[in-house]
């Protein structure tokens, strides 16, 4: 039986910043307003399960109002009519203002999602600022092309903003996901209706306020918290939304795509789940590989789409690896995410918590061997121990399903071909890690794995300039990088006859 992880219930001399929840209403057309129905819903603190605040609950009627505002702002407002440079200036100001509120935003996400405060402060929110600046600088660099026509014609393409964009974002990285979507959407000249996850509405509403301060015109950015089945479905089926971009589970992704098809055939991009493999070859430095795998599975309490949760270790180092991995997992401190000494906070809510425990149970029943964790942690909130299973067969549920929690499946392999075959034996294709010193293995395996992000001797190597998106049932469309702007642009080809052109 794995030993219990230390959980720090008492405040061991760390400060919990005082966090005021200032914005709890829907943000539509530049104003914070109640829901049409007057309804509100609770958002809870996963450290305790207690209610943080009541938030206005957007539904179809509110989405309609938001879309109306966004439509007006796009069809008649200044946003798409100002130059890319001018949009970029406003987005730069937005980034500067967000940067001034890094701690507040990080604290909101910690309270709302159980994310580590230090990481939020030092990495998550600052990298959102960097990403926004990336897109601010891209706004005046959206290029069409002049074309080679074989007829006596002149042709060129224009890249135009697609119009009103609907965004549905998840709860695991509330601020980051907000800027993943809003950054390129606004830079491209579109107007946006964004529904943050019902588990984590707080930081999105705060960012809406900051956007207004930065000079984003009314109606350009609308934030409507609410539930997927109501507000989310309303976005996906809306006849006047020109594009929908969704990040979340594969199951819900299907529903979004279906609704888009059944309504106005709005183009869809989906960033969905994953069951990403990490392949460790026997020429790897074992300690480095163990830490990498640990990070790949347990970062953000496993609530990350690109989490590396299937760890394949070549047989030569397998036994040592298992031993060390279990040790590292057991040393992990699970507790209050405001505590800078804690490695892992609580799962986001009760549903997720219970789901994870069910999967752990299934793993045991299917016959996998538990070498670390496996139990809930503490007697309050939604804490789960970092858990490692070995002797996992490829067809076990815990090897196929995305658990979205701190659960690692550790498996052995012999040859390169076997590793590739096992790695690809999944309906998902979001990311993969490769640990090796050998140039040929690195090149061959990276080309052979069907996944959108391949991280060699590193993991979570996110970059504003590096496009991120899945293969297969992990979705389609890219976030980040110049490629992500394509989601928010239409390509229009313009052709005129040419007379007496000296060249063709």
């Amino acid at each position, binding site marked *: 039986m794995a030993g219990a992880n230390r959980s720090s219930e008492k405040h061991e001399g760390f400060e919990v910043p005082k966090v005021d929840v200032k914005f709890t209403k829907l943000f539509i057309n530049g104003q914070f307003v109640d829901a049409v129905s007057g309804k509100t819903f609770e958002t809870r603190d996963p450290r305790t399960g207690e209610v943080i605040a009541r938030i206005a609950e957007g539904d179809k009627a509110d989405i309609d109002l938001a879309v109306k505002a966004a439509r007006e702002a796009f069809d008649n407002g200044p946003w798409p009519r100002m130059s890319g*440079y001018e949009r*970029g*200036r406003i987005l*730069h100001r937005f980034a500067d203002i967000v940067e001034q509120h890094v701690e507040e935003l990080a604290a909101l996400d910690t309270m709302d999602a159980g994310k580590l405060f230090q990481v939020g402060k030092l990495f998550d929110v600052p990298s959102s600022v*960097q990403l926004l*600046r*990336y897109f*601010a*600088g*891209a*706004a*005046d*660099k959206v*290029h069409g092309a002049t074309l080679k026509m074989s007829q006596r014609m*002149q042709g060129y393409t224009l890249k135009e903003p697609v119009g009103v964009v609907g965004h549905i974002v998840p709860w695991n990285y509330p601020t980051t996901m907000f800027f993943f979507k809003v950054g390129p959407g606004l830079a491209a000249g579109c107007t946006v209706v964004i529904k943050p996850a019902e588990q984590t509405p707080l930081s999105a509403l705060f960012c809406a306020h900051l956007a207004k301060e930065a000079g984003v015109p009314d109606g350009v950015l609308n934030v409507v918290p609410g539930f997927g089945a109501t507000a989310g479905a309303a976005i996906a089926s809306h006849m006047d939304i020109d594009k929908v971009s969704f990040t979340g589970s594969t199951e819900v992704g299907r529903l979004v795509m279906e609704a888009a098809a059944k309504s106005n055939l709005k183009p869809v991009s989906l960033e969905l789940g994953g069951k990403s493999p990490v392949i460790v070859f026997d020429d790897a430095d074992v300690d480095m590989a163990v830490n990498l795998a640990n990070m790949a599975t347990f970062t953000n309490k496993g609530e990350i789409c690109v989490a590396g949760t299937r760890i394949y270790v070549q047989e030569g180092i397998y036994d040592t690896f298992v031993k060390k991995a279990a040790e590292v997992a057991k040393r992990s401190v699970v507790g209050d995410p405001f505590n800078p000494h804690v490695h892992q906070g609580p799962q986001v809510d009760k549903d997720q918590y219970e789901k994870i425990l069910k999967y752990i149970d299934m793993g045991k029943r299917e016959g996998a061997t538990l070498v670390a964790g496996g139990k809930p942690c503490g007697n309050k909130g939604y804490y789960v121990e970092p858990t490692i299973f070995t002797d996992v067969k490829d067809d076990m549920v815990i090897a196929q399903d995305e658990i979205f929690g701190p659960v690692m499946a550790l498996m052995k392999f012999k040859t*390169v071909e076997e590793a*590739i075959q096992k790695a690809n034996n999944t309906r998902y294709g979001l990311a993969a890690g490769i640990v090796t010193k050998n*140039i*040929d293995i690195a*090149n*061959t395996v990276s*080309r*052979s794995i069907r996944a959108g992000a391949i991280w060699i001797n590193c993991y979570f190597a996110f970059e*504003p*300039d590096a496009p991120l998106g899945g293969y297969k049932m992990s979705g389609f469309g890219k976030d980040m990088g*110049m490629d992500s702007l394509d989601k928010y642009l239409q390509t229009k080809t313009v052709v*005129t*006859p*040419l*007379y*007496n*052109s*000296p*060249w063709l």
Partner: protein
Amino acid sequence: MYKARALLPGTLLHGRHRFSTAPAVVTGAAPNDEPIQPCVEIKHTQLLINGNFVDAASGKTFSTLDPRTGEAIARVAEGDAEDINRAVAAARRAFDEGPWPRMSAYERCRVLLRFADLIESHAEEIAALETWDSGKPLEQAAGAEVPMVARFVRYYAGWADKIHGLVVPADGPHHAQVLHEPIGVAGQIIPWNFPLLMFAWKVAPALACGNTVVLKTAEQTPLSALYVASLLHEAGVPEGVLNVISGFGPTAGAALCSHMDVDKLAFTGSTGTGKIILELAARSNLKPVTLELGGKSPFVVMDDADVDQAVELAHHAVFFNQGQCCCAGSRTFVHERVYDEFVEKSKARALNRVVGDPFRKGVEQGPQIDGEQFKKILQYVKSGVDTGATLVAGGERVGDRGFYVHPTDEMKIAQEEIFGPVQTILKFRGVEEVMRRANATPYGLAAGVFTRSLDVANTMARALRAGTVWINCYDVFDAAIPFGGFKMSGVGREKGPYGLRNYLQTKSVVTPIRDAAWL
């Protein structure tokens, strides 16, 4: 022959002239006015090497003159070969060992954005320096050029973290990456007609790509670059990344072009000097060279044009910046059906042009840059008259605006770049004829076409052998729009994403792939 109505001394080699009033509606100056004293302090007059303002190795200085009077504004350190050597050494160290190329592009972007903010917060000071040193109207410097400089820097700051190479499909199992790397130490030589804008066009893309720079300013206008470079250091650029040398072409300029440790050269100036630059680069280390040279750009007015609009546009196309524009629309081709009306209206417009102290509000045209240019322009005016063109306005020494009709294509004034406020109006009959004549020049920098017809616009746009074709507009510049010449107007392009290519080296990295899953 009509005399100019508003009189202004151009530059003079001695003494000081007074302005006299134009009796026309818009007045540039009152009689016997003193030139307005600019209230800006000249903070930097030394060379900027490795983050420090220093004297020239020789200790020499030279005067930079006020074009309104020909008098010295300040004495500035005179850089020569030894100073160039020191500057290149600093730039080399900063590139090979210093932080600038090694920091992330995002961090470079942040420095450049801070630089743009500092330019904006010191805009008044910078514009005043620029007007004082170059004679361009303050309204132009402050209202257009300084904001354009900030815009320009921000544009390239935004490219820094987006510089991509390619991964290309080889015909075989090889992984081929094409990396775009900073090229190294860039030598840049800029002219006096747009001192600060030219500074930005050169320095911004070079720095955004991670290079280090040695910049030689024009001897006529050394001041604004030194000041703005100090702001760049305030923004956090490491020492040695930007070095600014004031000095003369045959000494400092030649030393930079011939330097064996400069990886890239970029020059904007006359075609004559451009040839020398290219030669020196070839004789030394074959450093790649981009050249932005002269022009004799045609401005074509079709018979369907709105004559009033065409007159105004053509007027600005040639007279903007005292006519000191490489892309000035200096051959105005007008369709015979509208020729007479066009000439009458252009004459009236030219006579109304407000010439005066560039520090005074409402002045459209200041003095020419210096005595040498001034003399040259008047020689061209005389040549025009001597070869039989009709001078209908200006042309006087003090008025210094020539305005010609009925010249022929072969006249010097129709062939050679005057670089002054001299408009030459030629008559044509048909589209094919004007295309042929517009292209009959060794230059090819820009062109303007004024027409309502979609087809004429498209055909002419393609037929004109020039790097920029402006349709129903002129002198529309933006950071995103590439600019450069065909033929003897230059080699290469600046601005837009093309500006980056000048400052990047291309490296192909090839590795075999074993057991490729796809090719």
